[in-house]
């Protein structure tokens, strides 16, 4: 897959989505560069899920425009889908299929050749320290391993951009860090990573982040720039200030 290094991997311009009279996403604009690890933060109900659905072509925007991997999310849904990977905490792999079967399934869905699938399966099994003969059902894996496997599967077709929706919820602290190493490896290979998380220490691992509040991007920048902007020592406090608003934030 060729990645046009000069062009941003994700562009959102005044992207909006309304449901009836409710505006879930309100004119958000940002750019994510190729190979960047971009944290997409916000409280429950701030509009993150709606924004991700628009960027992955699942929902059409009410207003504004966006492109992912150079393709318009309104008009080039097919191409967008082919160039992205997606993984969420709720659903990523089939529990009742084995590790290999899951890899083969997604390889097939994305049109990889048998040789490519075989080669990448071996690579994934080695990377995740599975025995080459592994026949375990995904159901039997510890959550952390399941999530690492899900990430590898989402990257199987070498997408230009991968969307990770709360990928590490409930995962033990060591495996969580291993998961982030996989994220860095993918980014080093040029894949753009768009990730949401409720762990604010993980937000520190991002190159840049945005924090959504009430459908708008309330803050955007590198972790250190954001901490400096709000003159607080941790991102946790940046987040709390923004999400609770200045009035209540001061009480804390």
């Amino acid at each position, binding site marked *: 897959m060729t990645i046009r290094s000069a062009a941003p991997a994700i562009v959102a311009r005044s992207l909006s989505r309304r449901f009836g009279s409710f505006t879930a996403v309100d004119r958000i604009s940002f750019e994510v560069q190729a190979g960047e690890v971009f944290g997409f933060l916000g409280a429950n109900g701030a509009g993150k899920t709606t924004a991700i659905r628009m960027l992955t072509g699942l929902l059409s925007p009410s207003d504004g425009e966006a492109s992912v991997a150079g393709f318009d999310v309104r008009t080039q849904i097919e191409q967008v889908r082919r160039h992205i990977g997606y993984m969420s905490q709720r659903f990523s792999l089939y529990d009742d299929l084995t590790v290999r079967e899951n890899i083969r399934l997604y390889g097939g869905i994305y049109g990889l050749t048998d040789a490519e699938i075989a080669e990448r399966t071996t690579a994934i099994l080695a990377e995740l320290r599975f025995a080459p003969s592994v026949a*375990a059902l995904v159901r039997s894996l510890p959550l952390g391993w399941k999530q690492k496997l899900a990430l590898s599967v989402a990257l199987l077709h070498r997408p230009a951009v991968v969307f990770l929706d709360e990928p590490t919820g409930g995962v033990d602290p060591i495996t969580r860090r291993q998961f982030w190493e996989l994220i860095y490896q993918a980014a080093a290979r040029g894949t753009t990573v768009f990730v949401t998380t409720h762990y604010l220490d993980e937000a520190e691992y991002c190159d840049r982040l945005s924090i959504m509040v009430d459908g708008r991007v309330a803050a955007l920048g590198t972790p250190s720039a954001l901490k400096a902007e709000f003159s607080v020592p941790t991102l946790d406090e940046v987040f709390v200030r923004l999400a609770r608003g200045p009035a209540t934030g001061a009480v804390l």
Partner: protein
Amino acid sequence: MSASAIHVAGIEKRFGATTALRGVSFDVEAGELFGLVGPDGAGKTTLFRILTTLLVPDTGSATVLGKDVVRDYWDIRLRVGYMPGRFSLYADLSVEENLSFFASVFGTTMAEGRDLIDPIYRQIEPFRERRAGALSGGMKQKLALCCALVHRPDLLLLDEPTTGVDAVSRREFWDLLDTLRATGLTIVASTPYMDEAARCDRIALIQNGALLAIDAPGAVGRRFPRPLFAVRGMSRTRLLTALRAYAHAASVYPFGDTVHVSDARSGIAMEQQQLELSEWLRAQSVTDVSVVPVEPGIEDTFMELMGEPSPVAA
């Protein structure tokens, strides 16, 4: 034993080939806010189900409020409030209907439990006509808490009450637990978030069905066996590569915007360890290096005690 709200001794529980709990023992004092900290699949839910009399342990014994979980399950059920992992609400019933249903199930009314749940209920009262299914995650969580409290239990058991909830709502939720603890209520809550553990009186770290440590949150950090350093430097990747290549490194874990590193050698002063580490990094051409001693936290200890995870389910 009667002073303990919960007394657990040597509990084991197996499901077929998998062992969910392997010899778990601990006590929770009356009035305590006790945290059960560990990742998904560590055995927290099984433990809660044994304490709520929903499951019978294979071996070992447990008493809750002085009653045996196997023999006196009826007395226990009347006196505990339980919030299972998934918020167990009826999505098609309104906030008010859910609450009054759970009140009647326990033979009480919303009015009778009102003063206890008031600080929480006030926050969801504006939405009392709304169906539970249409609430945000944080609101659902507060409603579920109200439902577990409405019959004025003597013990509150919360299984991962903050899972899937954003950092702000999580904070607010723990503020609510503080308020409840102030009324003298005994609370046991589980969480995979290490930062939440700091808000408990005492915590038990749990991993793979076994307790790794039981202590006050501050003391858990002090169980970390070696001096710990927070390391910074330009380019995280280069920094991590250099640290992993360091022959004396016992542990290297990214921690927010730093990397926590400890030295495996025990006979060497902390200052010496710090100095050698800085020199190693500079030798590896990592720029802007800073190595400062840091107080180990709960997560540091947890990672130290849990050992390297393996892809094979326990």
